[in-house]
């Protein structure tokens, strides 16, 4: 094998090795660009932009101070150091005690620098607090509620059908917040248990969800897009994996989405399931490492398109399997905690699953919503999200789901578009 780098010094090779190691560790050698999915630097809405603007003011002012003060400090350290043994034991320098005029001057300069920071800070405190007066009427209202460890989103203005008879209640979804793009959204923040914090870095800084406290925030997405969010307040065992997504849609698509969501759960008509019919043999799902990633690089290339694709029914649906899954959903008491409007499931402990098949992620934005990951979750929720209530319900009610049952439930849930 030819040596491509014959003249590289050893240090250079070590650097190359280090770079190789870094590449192996995940290919984001440009981490200093800070342009990830949860970036606070590459932002996508007016609130985050205003906060970023204040941040940049603080950065430039402090950087200037740091350079000036640092230069003086470095100069003093170098200029006045004892150069040798003799110098160290020379007569001590003049024993001066200070100079009040220098002190006062520097205090004045510090105050001035802080004023430069304080002015945009104060202005942004007010502008980021609530929707601007002029647009307040236009603001879209949503209520977000934190649970250990997922988010519930309620649309108070949208009425969703509860059953065929026509009963209605405000639309509820979970873990994926769909908002209209280009329009201010006011989100009321609630919690049912401990303190959580609602954070979509690209759209707005976080505000906490605190019991007995009516917090809210506002945000706006400039363009349709797909955004990553995360709980930002330590809330127990699985705080790290309490995530969510925000999908901003153009006004027309948003209306279409609302219309779809407001309908009851989709029913795939199947021939009457024959309980006695032999079920197909299903291979066991591969095992997953603890904390194994459930996301794919492919999805990240165009997440919005990925989400849109989930809105359409899966290709070659197996109606019989879906019917079995629907029965199992009730038989395994899933319906005690989850709601599937129109399918008789009315539980409110866990996320509303009426249209779960149309979401791009499950388990609170943690893993992608596909047959394999969904089955991984249903098989052993504890290993995906330690301490969660579904795993607890499995233990307490001695629920176990066989391979065949897993596949059927997955088929059913994926059919809920």
């Amino acid at each position, binding site marked *: 094998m030819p040596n491509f780098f014959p003249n590289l010094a050893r240090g250079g090779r070590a650097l190359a090795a280090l770079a190789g190691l*870094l590449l192996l560790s*995940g290919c*984001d*050698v440009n*981490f200093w660009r*800070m342009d*990830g*999915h*949860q*970036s*606070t*630097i590459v932002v996508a809405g007016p609130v985050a932009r205003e906060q*970023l603007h204040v941040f940049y003011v*603080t950065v430039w*002012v*402090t950087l200037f*101070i740091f350079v000036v*003060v640092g230069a003086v*400090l470095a100069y*003093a350290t170098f200029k*006045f150091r004892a150069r040798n043994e003799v110098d160290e034991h*020379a007569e*001590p*320098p003049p024993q*001066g*005690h*200070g*100079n009040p005029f220098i*002190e006062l001057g*520097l205090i004045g300069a*510090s105050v001035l620098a*802080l004023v430069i920071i304080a002015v945009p*800070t*104060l202005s*942004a*405190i007010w502008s*980021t*607090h609530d929707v601007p007066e002029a647009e307040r009427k236009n603001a879209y209202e949503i209520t977000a509620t934190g649970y250990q460890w997922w988010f519930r989103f309620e649309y108070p203005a949208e009425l969703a059908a509860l059953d065929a008879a026509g009963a209605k209640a405000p639309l509820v979804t979970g873990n994926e917040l769909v908002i209209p793009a280009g329009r201010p959204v006011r989100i009321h923040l609630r919690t049912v248990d401990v303190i959580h914090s609602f954070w979509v*870095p690209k759209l707005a*800084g*976080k*505000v*906490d969800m*605190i019991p007995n*406290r009516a*917090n*809210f925030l506002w945000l706006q997405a400039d363009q349709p897009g797909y955004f990553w969010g*995360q709980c930002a*307040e330590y*809330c*127990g*065992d699985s705080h*790290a*994996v309490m995530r969510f997504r925000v999908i901003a849609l153009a006004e027309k698509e948003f209306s279409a989405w609302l219309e779809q969501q407001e309908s009851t759960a989709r029913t795939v008509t199947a021939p009457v399931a024959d309980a006695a019919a032999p079920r197909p043999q299903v291979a066991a799902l591969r095992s997953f490492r*603890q*904390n194994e990633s459930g*996301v794919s*690089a492919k999805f*990240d290339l165009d997440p919005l398109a990925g989400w849109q694709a989930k809105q359409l029914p899966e290709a070659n649906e197996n109606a019989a399997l879906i019917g079995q899954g629907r029965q199992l959903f009730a038989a395994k008491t899933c319906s005690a905690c989850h709601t599937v409007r129109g399918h008789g499931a009315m539980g409110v402990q866990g996320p509303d699953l009426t249209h779960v098949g149309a979401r791009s992620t499950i388990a609170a934005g943690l893993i992608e919503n596909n047959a394999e990951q969904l089955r991984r979750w249903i098989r052993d929720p504890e290993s995906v999200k*330690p301490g969660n209530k579904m795993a607890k319900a499995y233990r307490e009610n001695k629920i176990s789901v066989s391979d065949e049952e897993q596949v059927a439930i997955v088929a059913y849930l994926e059919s809920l578009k």
Partner: protein
Amino acid sequence: MDASAKTAYLTKEELAPAKPKLLSHPSAKTGLMGWLTTVDHKKIGFLYGFFALIFFLVGGFEALLIRTQLMVPNNDVLTAQQYNTLFTMHGTTMIFLAVMPLSSAFFNFIMPLQIGARDVAFPRLNAFSLWTFVAGAIILNIGWFLPTATHGAPDGGWFGYAPLTSKQFIPKHSIDYWVMGIQLLGVASIAASLNFIVTIINLRAPGMTMMRLPVFVWMTLITSFLIILSFPAITIALVELMMDRNFQTSFFEVSGGGMPILWQHLFWVFGHPEVYILILPAMGIISEILPTFARKPLFGYPIVVFSGACIGFLGFAVWSHHMFTTGLGTVATAAFSLATMAIAVPTGVKIFNWIGTLWGGHIVMRTPMLFALGFVWMFMMGGMSGIMHAAAPADSQQQDSYFVIAHFHYVLIGGSIFALLAGLHYWFPLMFGRKVSEFWGKLSFWVIFVGFNVTFFPMHFLGLNGMPRRTFTYDPNLGWNTANFIATMGSYVLGVGMFIYFAVLTYTFFKGERVKKDYWDGRTLEWSIDNPPPEYNFRVIPTVHARDGWWYEKHHRAEIEKEKSAHAQAEEEHGGIHMPFGSIWPFVTSVGLLVGAVGITYFDSDWSPGIHAKLGVSLVGGGIMFIGIYFWSLEGNEGYHLHLDQDGRPIADEPHAKH
């Protein structure tokens, strides 16, 4: 006590009938009993330092485990539960069991020497503070050795936000250990602080006016005031939490109408001054080291002192900047934002004055000076990111992200720890009469300095790129992989640096080169005595004529010698050097507190057998504590007199000495 010794121990009480044996004063100076009964501020300071360094290593080990888990995305070295316990205990340990007691070690050891005192004002209370600190440390860590399912070490975060800490969400006893452990540490800190305040106000040598106090003593005084004013807030919060958990009260319990936000206010009313409790002693140490090695007085002494007081004062007015995301509303957010920015002024002033001290000096570049200069640089960087948090809108993106982690490690490691490491090197020759090798000292500095920056600088990027703190795992697609990997590598380098530092220190303690007194050509009174310091500290209480008392003395020898011999004679006529007796009762009192705390925390509150064991053990602990306090009062606070020979050796310590 034999007859010859009796002539040396000239207390008038001994002329009275002999006391019962239980109340006789312990006389052991060495061995286990010597340590348990000691009231000598130097031995107590040493023990504080010893325990603090052990816990510093424990906390550091916890940090390395945390960094190992985060080295690569989706790592599974630790479970979620273990990770959450580790970050809780890392924070709690480093703050309460490492930095605070290490500062306390210096307060104990150095402060009385700097003001020309022979001990602190209440020597036995000092011993009580030490042993109660140890009791608190035991309670905090006891969960590591108990079953995780029902006990376990604390796992609610070092801030313990309600209502996560309630029985409903964490039913096991881990939180009880956290509550009781911090409660005991609070008792220890408040008792110690009262002691330091009284000592500084009352036991200064003649001529040591307040405006001649070394800056380290000033910072001890301000820190002590911060402690006695801020700890009551957390004490109340902890009592309320304990009541919620044990007696179904509803201070923070939402179902009973409690207010979880109240916890945050009480916690940060303590928690923010606590930040200054951690950094002011460090600033004091730096203000001692820079003048010594620049060989000129501190630039702008009155302003440095005043700005320290200013920081302490303002420190009580900014607690809600930890709560910018809790929905304070615009006006409160603006007020706390501006108050926080205001703190940057006195802090900046200190940095200007440190540079002014270097200006025109003859800087002798020794290990303590390297650490001190490292402190100034790193603290500046931490201060700058602090200003970024002060701007509330920017903070709403940074709060609870790795940006904050970077910020406070720059002020707590680059600040507090660097200063404490500098202080250890600086005062080591005084404390133990030996000096650390310059080569190994400087090497450890550079390894620590590089490791520290490689660990924490990338965290700024992580935070701005949206990585939240207190997360045991992250996905590979968020752009956090490289920075996390670098940070973990840096933490290993930092670990190696710390290992070198402490290995060298340990070696020096036993085998280091012996040095004469005043090794660094110091400026303050502690350098005027022999090393290691004799138990009575000063042969003659010095009279202070200038701000840098010992520097003045060195340059006005003849005048001072004359004055000293006159004072020595006067003291001898008064019966000699007065020393306090040792006592076991502070130790017994602390043991009582420990037993009581175990009773309250370990057992369940439900009926049989829980509540009986709980009550029983708590009452036994209370009984032991009561006995300790009772005999502590009964044994009396008298001391004995010491007479010295020509070489400064106590005559009483020589078994056959004739007087």
